């Protein structure tokens, strides 16, 4: 028999994560519709909101003081949305390919699988948003990098939230089968009104403000408006968002592991159907 590295060593672990990333990269590379899908919807959104912002600005001047806030919100929302979709779709590819059984009997560990899904989520976000970021600059003169270093913090908060939702969705699909697949597209939209993507938290009724403030992305969108409208960087918002994200990510991981255990108990790892 061939000698193999220790299955529990960090190098072996990194190699298995790399193998999964390679698997998803092969898939993306082989399928132009998959690549197109990454860019298509963010580009459509950007054009629609960009022209709306232009119209409102020209006719009413209502956005004069908030130049770029709408487009900034569109771009940051797409990090959250695309991050979660990227995580969940990579996982769903295994269900669609009926490949999950092979992976689960390989030395791949649950944490390594999750790490690969996280990396793929970032790769898919970057592929999808890089052209759209350029479009925003060319068509509407909005440079998202004008947010400066805060952009890195915003990205971290949003992508971590997207992973926590992705973990929950994938766990539910593992346990309930592909009948739960639609959650991959719909669950995150719950955050669209509640995380105050396009308006300040103060717009919400008071009781709903508490809900909004329990969501990490709320602090990103509030922080973005503080920079673009008031010219102020709010470190306090950034810290609160990051701390909340730790809680969300821990909850997402706990849910995924629990649902994976439950899938083993109920035999649903063998079933890839409805």
């Amino acid at each position, binding site marked *: *028999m061939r000698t193999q590295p220790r299955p529990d060593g960090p190098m072996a672990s990194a190699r298995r994560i790399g193998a999964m990333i*390679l698997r998803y990269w*092969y898939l993306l590379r*082989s399928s132009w519709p998959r690549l197109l899908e990454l860019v298509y919807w963010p580009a459509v959104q950007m054009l629609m909101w960009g022209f709306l912002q232009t119209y409102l600005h020209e006719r009413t001047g209502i956005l004069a003081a908030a130049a770029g806030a709408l487009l900034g919100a569109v771009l940051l929302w797409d990090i959250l949305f695309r991050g979660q979709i990227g995580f969940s779709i990579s996982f769903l590819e295994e269900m669609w*390919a*009926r490949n999950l059984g*092979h992976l*689960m009997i390989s030395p791949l560990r649950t944490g390594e699988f999750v790490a690969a899904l996280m990396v793929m989520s970032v790769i898919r976000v970057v592929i999808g948003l890089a052209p759209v970021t350029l479009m925003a600059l060319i068509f509407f003169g909005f440079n998202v990098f004008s947010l400066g270093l805060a952009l890195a913090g915003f990205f971290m908060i949003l992508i971590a939230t997207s992973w926590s939702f992705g973990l929950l969705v994938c766990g539910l699909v593992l346990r309930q089968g592909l009948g739960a697949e639609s959650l991959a597209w719909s669950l995150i939209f719950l955050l669209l009104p509640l995380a105050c993507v396009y308006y300040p938290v103060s717009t919400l009724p008071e009781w709903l403000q508490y809900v909004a403030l329990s969501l990490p992305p709320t602090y990103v969108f509030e922080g973005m408006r503080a920079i673009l409208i008031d010219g102020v960087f709010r470190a306090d918002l950034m810290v609160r968002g990051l701390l909340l994200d730790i809680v969300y990510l821990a909850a997402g991981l706990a849910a995924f592991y629990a649902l994976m255990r439950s899938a083993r108990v109920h035999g649903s790892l063998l079933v890839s159907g409805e």
Partner: protein
Amino acid sequence: MRAEPDGAAVTALDLTKRYRNVLAVDGIGFTVPRGAVVGLLGGNGAGKTTTIAMILGLIQPTRGAITVLGHDMVRQRHRVLGRMNFESPYVSMPMRLTVRQNLTVYGRLYGLGGLKQRIAEIAAALDLEELLDRPCGKLSAGQRTRVGLAKALINEPELLLLDEPTASLDPDTADWVRGHLEGYRDKRGATILLASHNMPEVERLCDRVIIMKRGRIVDEGTPADLVKRFGRATLEDVFLTVARSDDLTPRAAATGSA
């Protein structure tokens, strides 16, 4: 191969799986000695696939213990998963990936060194060289089975589990697959546990047979012993006798060596 204290590749003790009101596997016990080829027979719903899934660690037993190559599959499966593998026509590999890409991914998951050479070796052994750069989705059923076998053998497993390895194959391809499995066992001294509905296949490949019905083991022994004990002409006749009988009483000691 690493020596295990009890010399058994698989040991099941009081293995039970219950799904709510359905008892899929009902307290079975058996041992698969190292280097043996053991067949798991039974009609649909007999509990074969559930038993194999518990051996693979895909399903957690409700009760009982399953030890594979000396490790408990509920608590220590990651210590042993790299030394075993599985093939079934009911579990696919990514269709858009080429054969080479799939084997590369799995080779890396199993932590193999010299992967290019290993893929070349296994492609030569399974007559896949011409197919290496074709997407798996564009292969025929027989070609896919050979690719599945290549994936199952990529890590040269000490324990190979097969669920109906020749289902939906034409007789020529099925015969070729059986020949390859015999060759692998002879060359590597590997243990093979296979579930099959194909009785001539079981008679040809298996040293021992375990017959299951409604989640229980109803008999076990060598194919020749079973044919003799049941007073039938072939193993297929034995299978039909068991399948059509309501008697679930074990004819041989179910806890003995398989």
